[in-house]
């Protein structure tokens, strides 16, 4: 599978990193020359980067720089917007995930997503968490029960809701709802969880809880998080990628990607430094 995908990528003339073929199935992405266009509007171009497994990678940059768009390439949610073209090559654990190479439905069971605003389903807490497993065909009551407890524990929500799993999800607070959404994403046992500004609609205490949850999750899953909040990126991420769209006529580019500590103390690019020190954006 890996070699096939790599050979396919080579046949398309894309550079394939040599180490890619040795990566185990654990949630590492490799992006090569990725571009995205909405109709005629080219929003991202020439993004090449690796996203290592079991680490937190933060995507930062000013509004409209294509962070969320790039994130949606990783679970093919751009497909749902219509009129979106994605170019270049993206592999997950060496397997091509672009175009017809993979069914987005299969991909999304491996790559979960948590959205900007908490979006629990209008159902009980229990039914929310088992939505993904049920989609995968898991029906056994005991198995589902175990998944619910495990997922809610990982999302640091179990102690608060263990006595009220039959309660409607909308009765939870905003922060609890977002942790429920994290638990719901974890219940499908994904390799990766994408987070699109998961704390931007929450108060500081809930934000803190989400950040703690993220820190505890990275042993099990790869996390890619889009954030506007640079302190947040500095606090929780291992690697940071800075994107910038320098004018509306031009697509956004990846300016710099590297270890978070280095990015925030000694960035290579002057634009990264200006953004991080708050000179624009």
């Amino acid at each position, binding site marked *: 599978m890996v070699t096939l995908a790599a050979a396919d990528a080579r046949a398309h003339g894309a550079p394939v990193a040599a180490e890619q073929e040795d990566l185990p199935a654990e949630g590492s992405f490799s992006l090569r020359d990725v571009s995205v266009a909405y109709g005629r509007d080219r929003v991202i171009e020439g993004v090449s980067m690796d996203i290592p497994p079991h680490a937190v990678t933060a995507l930062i940059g000013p509004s409209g720089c294509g962070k969320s768009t790039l994130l949606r390439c990783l679970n093919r949610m751009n497909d749902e917007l219509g009129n979106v073209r994605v170019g270049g090559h993206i592999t997950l654990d060496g397997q091509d995930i672009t175009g017809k190479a993979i069914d987005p439905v299969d991909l999304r069971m491996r790559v979960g997503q948590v959205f900007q605003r908490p979006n629990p389903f*209008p159902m009980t807490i229990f039914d929310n968490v088992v939505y993904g497993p049920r989609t995968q065909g898991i029906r056994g009551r005991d198995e589902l029960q175990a998944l619910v407890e495990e997922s809610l524990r990982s999302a640091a929500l179990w102690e608060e809701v263990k006595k009220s799993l039959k309660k409607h999800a909308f009765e939870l607070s905003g922060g609890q709802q977002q942790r429920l959404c994290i638990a719901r*994403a974890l219940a499908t046992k994904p390799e990766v969880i994408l987070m699109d500004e998961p704390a931007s609609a929450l108060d500081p205490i809930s934000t803190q809880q989400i950040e703690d949850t993220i820190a505890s999750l990275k042993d099990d899953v790869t996390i890619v998080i889009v954030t506007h909040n640079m302190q947040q990126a500095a606090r929780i991420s291992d690697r940071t990628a800075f994107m910038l769209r320098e004018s509306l006529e031009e697509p956004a580019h990846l300016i710099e990607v590297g270890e978070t500590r280095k990015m925030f103390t000694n960035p290579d690019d002057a634009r990264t430094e200006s953004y991080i020190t708050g000179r624009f954006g």
Partner: protein
Amino acid sequence: MMTPSRRRKARIAETTARMLLGSMALIVVGIALFVVGYIVYRGAGALDWQFLTDVPRNRGREGGIFPVVIGTVWVVGGTAAFALPVGILAGVYLSEYAPKGFATRAVRLAITNMAGVPSIVYGLFGLAAFVLLAGIGRSILAAALTLACMTLPVVITATEEALRQIPQDLRQASLALGATKFRMIRTVVLPAAAPGIITGSILGLARAAGETAPILFTGAVFQMRRIPDSPLSQFMALPYHIYTQVTSVPEWNPDLVWGTALVLVGGVSLVSVAAATWRAFQRRKIAW
């Protein structure tokens, strides 16, 4: 800075506008109350157990309206059986699947036009298509199919409208968990939209219950001794009963006709109120 005289003029204009708009609103309320109040006033006297359970006697001047009520229940039930599945499924397709293009616009235009066709034309169409061409004959089935055609645009529009109210967030959440589009619709979107779809559809069916023209040529009869016992039998119906009493029965009994009108309006209101109550209950449970 406004001069005192300008300020006075502005105040007068404001007061006039408020009174004019308010009085128009009052007129609407007044008309509604008057119509309902008058029907109740004229019809309440005839309402008793015998009226609801007896058959019409002496060409409808005496007796009750039991077969008439049953006929209307049959034909509205038949209408629902055709219009709801077709209308709801078509609405789901248009809202969730249809590509944005010429064909979809043409379908929407056709639906709008369907809603604008006069009911008597539906009656004529029903006679030609269902009674004669399809060979069903004048029957509950033919009348229900005709009313279903007339009700379809209401159901489709109600479905599309209800689906539009469902936040995009929820759809994305479902898809991002690896659900197929159909699973997303079946498990998240439709359950959440159900209250809106059902109340909208009931309004359409309520209108169908009160229509005379579409059933005129397709199966309704003036008088029948027995209760309709199959979809292929002819039937009596409340609106048609009122129509024939007033136009074809010399010395018709106004008490019984108003009573019939009250049963029709009351029955339709009862169903609408039940649907609205159910919807309010659902809303309290599920608030975005």
